[in-house]
């Protein structure tokens, strides 16, 4: 029930946006998020965007994960 999936905003019309979910495009409601922007990713639950993904934070998290995955000797318990 609390499933939400990420998609990319392609167009914005009023409180709705056309969002691309990995090739499938669907109109969703964007009234629950602040400053929706074309080209950004949103997390969508039951046809409503519930959050815009914070790209800086996402990239930071991913970069940290990449470093961890690439460094064979690293002990994860010291990283958290």
């Amino acid at each position, binding site marked *: *029930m*609390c*499933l*939400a999936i*990420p998609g*990319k905003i392609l167009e914005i019309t009023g409180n709705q946006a056309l969002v691309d979910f*990995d090739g499938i495009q669907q109109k969703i*409601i964007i*009234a*629950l*998020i*602040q400053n929706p922007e074309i080209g950004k*990713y949103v*997390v969508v*639950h*039951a*046809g*409503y965007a*519930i*959050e815009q*993904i*914070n*790209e800086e*934070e*996402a*990239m930071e*998290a*991913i970069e940290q*994960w*990449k470093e*961890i*995955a690439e460094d064979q000797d*690293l*002990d*994860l*318990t010291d990283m*958290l």
Partner: protein
Amino acid sequence: MEITDLNILRSKDFTDKIIKSINKIMRELDKSIKIMHVCGTHEHTISKYGLRSLLPKEIEVISGPGCPVCVCPAADIDKAIELGRREDIIITTFGDMIRVPASNLSLSELKAQGADVRIVYGPNDAVKIAKDNPNKEIIFFAIGFETTVPLTGYEIKSNPPSNFSVICAHKLIPAALELLMSIDQLSIDGFISPGHVSTIIGIKPYKLFSDAYHVPNVITGFEPNDVLLAILMLLKQIKNKKFETLNEYSRVVKPEGNIVAQKIISEVFESVSSPWRGIGRILDGGLMIKDKYEKYDADKKFDIKIEKSTDIPPGCSCHLIMTGKLSPNECKLFRKTCTPLNPVGPCMVSMEGTCSIYYKYYSE
């Protein structure tokens, strides 16, 4: 950022690293650890990817009351069924809800008897049905945790047509965590908290909880490595005797949560003591529609009272499974009389119900 960068979330090398660290920290801890999650989507990730089999046997990951369909009281479904018998009423709800057995029937059985029961993808679809059918009353049977609440709230405050109303069966997660901590025999060492509920409510409600009960909590995403990393983050807290709420899912969950959604929730709803199926009444465990919007409250509009209902059918163990006291395999009906095709209890119906997930992913 391209979303493909997120492939690292499924990197096997990363999985290996996390498991290695989990094993190391467990050797240092040298005791059994019980971790509970309260989200059907987390149980889905854990079961589908076989995460329990990757963990040392001293770590037990149990499933809590994380399926909103499962915790919806039979009396609320009975109410929808009674209203759905009327020819001038169309009942709308999420697909997961219509097969859940109530005291006598499910909504899908009512539909088979000729009632107009429709599955909607979101509450906006229910409003559209109301606009398209001005001579009918359209009731949206609203279930779900904080993730779903603002969707219903948004439609209620957007001036929907007067033939639209809501049975409000929404439930709130933090209150359920408090109740779980009060069950002595559970003795939970740490919680994996639901990422999308947290997207709405932010970190604060959990912080109050981890501070009050000295139990670590990690807000967690839904990829396998998210869940494993959360377990490691819990273990590290247990080892250091530092009990707080951490946010593993920071790529989506902001510390303050979704302020727009929170404002909509407090504008439209107020928290109430609320019954959870098989668990009992939980203080501040649910929501009701505020008087300001009472014309959209189906309870007030139709004044239906259900005198007697049956939450747990004879032999069913859903109440014990939802509080982590029993595993589905220990229920005597599981896989025998209770199957996804013929569910006896609510946990076998929804794709997020613990029994339904165990039926699909675990062998006998």
